[in-house]
């Protein structure tokens, strides 16, 4: 019984992490038709910012403030990137935009190492206790992360399904031409979505910081996992990202338990399988 609880919590935590990281990526994919390779870099910067702020402020409340500030700061950074560079490339092939974001991966990696150095950092979790459920140990902060993922999911659902902006974002995913014809300020919408995506990346980095070691290389570590989840779930679909995160997390955890030698290859196999069967992901829109 305790293995079941531990595994479930582990899967949910993993899925929560993957979801928070991927939600921003899938939104940007969907609305801007842009593969943002720098999403991992934004994640890393969010984590680094939160680490520095949390150490400076100290305490549980210091950490919360650090997370919020990090998310906002990274959203601002994302806005800057979109307005200065990506906007100019909007009319070009997706490849040009992709390469521009790849260029930013290099730039951010270097700047981050300049500012924060090459040594790793560690952030203490605001809640360090653990619960005991049915004989299994459950760290409290894992539950906090699951909670944050839930809040993000809820917030995005409300935004996309219940607000006019959200409706426009969904329309941008489905049919941008008609949307523009209807009078929506598409550039502003695009910048807003990108900023939101960046902010989510920063939030993810900051929220997950207490669970890992923060240093150079974090950007490339996370980006491939984020791609897999987003693509398997379907570009542009937040529900897809959530489901994709659950599937990948389950496969990884069970793989670790049952076929440890191939556990690291499993996520890629899942993605390939999903795309082989449904070439636009679980909840994606077939190419127009």
């Amino acid at each position: 019984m305790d293995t079941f609880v531990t595994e479930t919590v582990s899967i949910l935590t993993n899925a929560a992490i993957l979801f928070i990281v991927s939600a921003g990526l899938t939104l940007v994919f969907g609305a801007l038709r842009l593969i943002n390779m720098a999403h991992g870099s934004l994640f890393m910067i969010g984590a680094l910012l939160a680490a520095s702020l949390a150490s400076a402020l100290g305490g549980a409340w210091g950490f919360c403030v650090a997370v919020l500030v990090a998310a906002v700061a990274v959203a601002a950074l994302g806005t800057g990137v979109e307005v200065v560079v990506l906007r100019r490339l909007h009319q070009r092939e997706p490849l040009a935009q992709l390469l521009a974001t790849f260029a930013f991966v290099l730039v951010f990696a270097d700047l981050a190492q300049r500012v924060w150095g090459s040594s790793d950092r560690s952030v203490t979790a605001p809640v360090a206790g653990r619960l005991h459920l049915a004989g299994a140990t459950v760290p409290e902060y894992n539950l906090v992360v699951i909670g944050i993922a839930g809040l993000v999911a809820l917030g995005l659902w409300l935004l996309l399904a219940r607000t006019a902006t959200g409706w426009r974002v969904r329309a941008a995913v489905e049919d941008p031409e008609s949307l523009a014809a209807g009078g929506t300020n598409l550039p502003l919408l695009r910048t807003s979505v990108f900023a939101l995506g960046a902010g989510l990346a920063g939030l993810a980095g900051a929220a997950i910081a207490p669970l890992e070691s923060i240093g150079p290389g974090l950007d490339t570590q996370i980006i491939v996992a984020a791609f897999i989840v987003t693509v398997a779930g379907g570009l542009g679909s937040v529900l897809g990202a959530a489901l994709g995160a659950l599937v990948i997390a389950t496969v990884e955890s069970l793989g670790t338990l049952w076929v440890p030698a191939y556990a690291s290859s499993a996520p890629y196999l899942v993605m390939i399988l999903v795309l082989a069967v449904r070439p636009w992901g679980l909840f994606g829109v077939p190419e127009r």
Partner: protein
Amino acid sequence: MTALDETHSTPAPTLGRAVRRSTLIRAVSVLVVLAALAAAPYVVSVTVILTLEEIAAFAVFAVAANLLIGQAGLISFGQGVFFGLGAYTVTLGWEHAHWSFWLGFALAPVLGAVAAVPIGLVALRARTLYFALITLAFSELFYQLVEQNTDFTGGANGVFAPVVPAWMENPVNGYLTLLGIAVAALAVLRWIYASNFGLLLRASRENRARIQALGTSVYRLHLLAFVVSGAFCALAGAMLVIYNQGSNAELFDWTTSGQAVIASVIGGMYTFIGPVAGTFVYQFGHDNLVRYVPDWQLVLGAVLLLVVLVRPDGLVGALRLSGRRGGATRGVELDSATEGSGATGE
């Protein structure tokens, strides 16, 4: 007269003369460049020769990858799979099966082509962005598999051994061999680009539905391109072993695949010579930067950004003039195809 007739009737006589003259200029410039490259070892420093060795291998890689990226419009982040397969065929063949270097070298493209079939069958079902990401997934999958199977593949350590015949250790010999192989491979690829097959690929990039309607199975066309590309990418990987003295798991990684993409875009992905030029720029830039500039990532990123922003169709790109974008009258296509293949510097 309709607009269509106008485009047709006037250029015909001048087109013939222009083609003849530009073919001559093209042939001469190719010979000049080849002569310069062959004479290079006796003129430039060893550092440059070493970089040129790398460029020989990576140029073939980039052009082979560009068959998909630029010509067919299939952005693949997975050509590293074949590149790595080619390199490992040589090294593992030497280590486990005691093949000579040249046997492994000859088998590398075969293995690349064979592997491309199942991968292509699966990957080509996806379109554009999904295709890019599924090829990326294949890249990472192979990287993981090679890294985990330490016993067979050497794992993260790779296989570094005296696989390459000793006389090629000398940078000059190694370079001249690589140059010869590269020229031969590029000649074949050039023939492929210029053939009807290449034309069909470009056409399918422009308007897939139309080509499908004309009776060609675009899926099969793309699969064939994928196999050809896989074979030549594997050849490039085998070529790299001469420079690298071995093979390592990172050759499968998406960052290696990405290098071919970057070179193609910087150089101009709608042309044949573009990826070669792009490889020159990228390799010289990268190699010198990591040696002399601690912030090389920053510089490389900034340069890449600049190129993407300022030179939209690459350094050697055949520009698709804004007026002609999306509308494809036959006359226009004939013009751009001719300009693409007939003008100098190709």
